[in-house]
């Protein structure tokens, strides 16, 4: 992870660490904090705790997003302090989920923009002048448009990949495929590195082809406190516990000192958490299919 971030994430980059609740790569976020990257434009549908931590650590210049909260548990207070008190200032570019999804679709298709039937009657296009419209050349209907998002670097967490980066994901897919294919550089972080024969045995499960991947990092528990279906559950207690930490900037700094700067890598982090075995997934293996012909 240290080498991948050092080689592929640069100051001033537009960075996407995706994953919708599932497969959010905290390990990569922590390494970016440790390497003290600055002036990043951070993009995600749901900034989640990982971007709250990166904002608090001073990595972010700008946030591009569609829903910034701690689901069911409260707020992202480092984000709120930055917006409400300009402590520190943070530029915002805000969409809805559909808008962010559409931006990544355009980026992945290498088109300049994407059209969607959305935003009529809302204040979002006033708040964000990059939400515009186009008249359909076939029907005359006016449709909303959003510009392509082509990140400098995208980090995707996944269950498994081979050494070439052929990446398999199951469970919630989020926008992992679109984000990876929209990006100039791609880091795939996996729970398990597998032999290519495992990938070839079930090719329909490959979400990102190795041809789009620049680095494969093997990092078990790399998504904690997010989760990896079939590997470990979401640490809901951690999300609830984040509310008082995030609310108090001194407590948040203390957290970063202990769990990010105070550890060398992910395995030390897991140790510092006192082990995470309590979250290990139960077994619900599916039957598999016949690929014969």
């Amino acid at each position, binding site marked *: 992870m240290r080498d991948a971030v050092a080689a592929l994430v640069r100051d001033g980059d537009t960075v996407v660490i995706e994953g919708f609740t599932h497969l959010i790569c905290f390990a990569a976020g922590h390494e970016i904090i440790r390497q003290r990257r600055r002036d990043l434009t951070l993009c995600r549908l749901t900034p989640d705790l990982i971007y709250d931590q990166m904002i608090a650590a001073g990595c972010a210049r700008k946030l591009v997003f*569609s829903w*910034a909260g701690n689901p069911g548990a409260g707020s992202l207070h480092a984000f709120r302090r930055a917006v409400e008190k300009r402590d520190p200032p943070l530029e915002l570019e805000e969409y809805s989920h559909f808008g962010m999804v559409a931006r990544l679709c355009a980026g992945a298709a290498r088109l300049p923009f994407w059209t969607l039937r959305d935003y009529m009657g809302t204040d979002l296009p006033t708040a964000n002048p990059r939400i515009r419209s186009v008249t359909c050349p076939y029907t005359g*209907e006016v449709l909303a448009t959003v510009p392509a998002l082509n990140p400098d670097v995208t980090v995707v967490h996944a269950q498994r990949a081979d050494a070439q980066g052929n990446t398999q994901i199951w469970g919630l897919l989020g926008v992992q495929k679109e984000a990876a294919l929209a990006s100039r550089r791609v880091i795939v972080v996996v729970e398990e590195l597998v032999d290519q024969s495992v990938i070839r045995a079930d090719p329909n499960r490959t979400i990102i082809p190795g041809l789009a991947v620049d680095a494969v990092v093997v990092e078990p528990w790399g998504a904690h406190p997010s989760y990896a279906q079939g590997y470990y559950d979401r640490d809901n207690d951690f999300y609830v516990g984040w509310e008082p930490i995030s609310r108090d900037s001194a407590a948040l700094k203390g957290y970063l000192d202990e769990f990010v700067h105070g550890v060398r890598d992910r395995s030390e982090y897991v140790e510092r958490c006192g082990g995470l075995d309590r979250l290990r997934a139960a077994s619900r293996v599916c039957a598999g299919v016949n690929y014969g012909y």
Partner: protein
Amino acid sequence: MATVAARELRDGEVVFVGIGLPNLACNLARATHAPRLLLIYESGAVGAEPERLPVSIGDPSLVTGSLMVCGMADVFQFLLQNGRIEVGFLGGAQIDRYGNINTTVVGSYDAPTVRLPGSGGAAEIAIHARRTVVISRLSRRAFPDSVDFLTSPGHRMRGRTRADLGMPGAGPVRVVTDKGILEPDPETGELVLAALYPSTTVDEVRAGVGWPLRCRETLREVEPPGDEDLRLLRDVLDPHGLYLRS
């Protein structure tokens, strides 16, 4: 509120489920009068049958045993924009006279006093779901005359109607509160009081609304939750009181 919201759902309908009370309402409906309700979560789980109460809309229990799991580009383009969603649930920090919802900021956008999470999928659910049900506790702060920021459109936006703006869905047909149910006036789109909970008064509802609230000519009385509803909610669906506070 969870029971009242559950009654809005008919068996076999396709519902876009949000987290919190809507999630509880949908699972209560599925356990009672609507066993064939199809639950779709914006995270990509279609036909979810969670074996535990999901803490978030991305909970792993939504995947296990569901009918389909797809990416979010498919959910928003090929299910929601495609017109497949019959009911959407929405909530918000502010709901105004015309059912417009604010989940973005309190105060001005550039210098807000409170920064809220933002739209998420709410703007497009409000536009595309064939009808929406809004759930919120009554208070003057939550029900102002006009929202500070219009995140999710209701029935009249700066004087323009849903039809003027070409919106596919019918918008909020019910606003379920803790004291009564509001519904849009068919002519103007303004929310009016349509039903009262037992032992609440019109004045109590008016005290929680920031505009001169009008009433339907005949007010319905909301039936209280049955014993079986309460048992399911308290003992089965939310035994740890994650979403139920009273």
